[in-house]
């Protein structure tokens, strides 16, 4: 069979998370801090709207770029949360999750040999999507001492005359890092000077715990060079509905829509109707969930402080990214032993790029009670490691 397969695809590394998942799923009673999705149910009014759409027989394709009402609500949402103005008629496309937006966004701009700059640690799909689109990924290894923010120096060093686009994944999965306005202004200046694009993956935009999230598209001269990606999964606890969107200049959306039209047709209709209710009536739900995440984040930071586990304070998403370098183990060894000895599943930082070595991604999309139990076990494990040193 092998001779039939695409070389590009067979050469792709399988996701590091997948590998770990296979080990975890063998363990029956393991508790997990490894989940990248909210623990909350989708708020009822949103689910109810989905049910209502089915009852009314709204079971047909929508227009390729998504329901007009939904695109309108998205543009209203971005206006009210970030002061961004996107024309719902031609600057917004509704996609199957943020993941599809990443894929078609890259495919719409890449010519063979173009370079895509990807700061890591970051979400697992940027690099493979770039490769599949025919690009050469150029990795920036972000540093803990910069709180995993992208610095202008790091960016400048990665840019060549083949650079087409920078992927800017903030608030960040897996580190929980954010970029603030002054950080973004420095990056924007370089982007404009070097005449490249930015794909800003802002799927966690609603979940920040310091200042309100700032999009790079808000900075002067950046909207026309930004593909902004967002969606409903994290903010509204709607992962299984598979719904996201991209906003960009209309020439770009036009090309993205072509790929989307041929590959996908349209995002799920039921989800689109439900999402209208999310944007119209969901602000309070998001705020309540954000508050709950923030409490858990503080709980974890305090627990790490008490067990003297080194960790910078993250202000976004729902992850913390502690360092385990003191134990002289690889992340994978640490995670595997923790799983075997204490039955706690944590994703090794290396699942998000080589520079994640020495770190763990701990998700706080869990109730305080679950976190307490898991952290208790982690502490026991660490105490044992330190005692045996």
């Amino acid at each position, binding site marked *: 069979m092998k001779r039939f397969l695409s070389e590009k695809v067979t050469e792709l590394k399988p*996701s590091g*998370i997948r590998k*770990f*998942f296979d080990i*975890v*799923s063998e363990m029956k009673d*393991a508790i*997990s801090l*490894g*989940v*990248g*999705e909210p*623990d909350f149910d989708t708020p009822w009014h949103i689910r109810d709207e989905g049910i209502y759409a089915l009852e009314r027989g709204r079971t047909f394709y929508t227009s390729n770029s998504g329901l007009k009402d939904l695109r309108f609500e998205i543009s209203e949402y971005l206006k009210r949360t970030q002061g961004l103005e996107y024309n719902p008629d031609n600057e917004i496309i509704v996609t199957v999750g943020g993941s599809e937006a990443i894929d078609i966004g890259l495919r719409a701009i890449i010519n063979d040999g173009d370079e895509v700059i990807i700061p890591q640690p970051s*979400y*697992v*799909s940027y690099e493979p999507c770039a490769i599949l689109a025919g690009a050469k990924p150029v990795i920036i290894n972000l540093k803990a001492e910069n709180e995993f923010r992208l610095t202008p120096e790091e960016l400048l060093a990665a840019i060549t005359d083949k650079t087409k686009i920078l992927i800017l994944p903030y608030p960040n*999965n897996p580190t929980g890092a954010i970029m603030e306005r002054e950080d973004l202004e420095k990056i924007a200046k370089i982007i404009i000077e070097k005449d490249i694009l930015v794909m800003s993956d802002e799927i966690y935009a609603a979940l920040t715990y310091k200042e309100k999230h700032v999009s790079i598209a808000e900075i002067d001269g950046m909207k026309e060079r930004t593909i902004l990606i967002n969606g409903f999964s994290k903010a509204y606890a709607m992962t299984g509905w598979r719904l996201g969107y991209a906003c960009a200049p209309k020439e770009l959306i036009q090309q993205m829509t072509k790929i989307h039209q041929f590959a996908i047709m349209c995002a799920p209709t039921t989800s689109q109707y439900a999402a209208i209710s999310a944007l119209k009536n969901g602000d309070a739900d998001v705020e309540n969930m954000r*508050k709950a995440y*923030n*409490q858990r984040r*503080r*709980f974890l930071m*305090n627990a790490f402080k008490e067990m003297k586990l080194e960790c910078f304070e993250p202000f976004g998403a729902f992850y913390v990214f502690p360092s385990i370098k003191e134990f002289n183990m690889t992340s994978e060894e640490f995670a595997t032993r923790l799983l075997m000895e204490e039955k706690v*599943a944590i*994703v090794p930082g290396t*699942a998000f790029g080589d520079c994640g070595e020495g770190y763990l991604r701990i998700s706080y999309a869990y109730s*305080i009670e679950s976190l307490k139990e898991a952290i208790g076990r982690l502490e026991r494990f660490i105490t044992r490691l330190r005692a045996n040193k």
Partner: protein
Amino acid sequence: MREELLSIIEKNSRIDFKELAILLGAEEAEVLKELENLEKEGVICGYHTLINWEKTSIEKVTALIEVKVTPQRGQGFDKIAERIYNYPEVKAVYLISGGYDLLVTLEEKTLKEIAGFVSDKLSTLDSVLSTATHFVLKKYKDHGTVMNKKSTDEREVVTP
């Protein structure tokens, strides 16, 4: 801090102030002071436990009683409400807009006791014009808590 503190202890009144301080990102002393103030001001009126009596062998009957009354001069509904809420078997009394005036929640051991309360005590009050008694057959949700909810995590154990 106040609103967030209240919303945490509304769900979990047993949480200690140390943990509260961590969750709120505040100093312990600050949290203690605020709790004290809230109690003093009467914002926090009690720390109760939500019990699903149906799961015990103890018999309880709950009734919701709609009461129509004549408000009294100078005192409105307060006087009559007080006469009703002073009975210990009365669990709650609300002044309601709409078709009737007071909604009374009553908890007793038997149906007979509830009937007795309504006919002997409640209806005989001077300003009570009429009553309509509804018995609770099943409690699905109380104080924002679904009574028989099994919480299972349906998520995959590890996802990107």
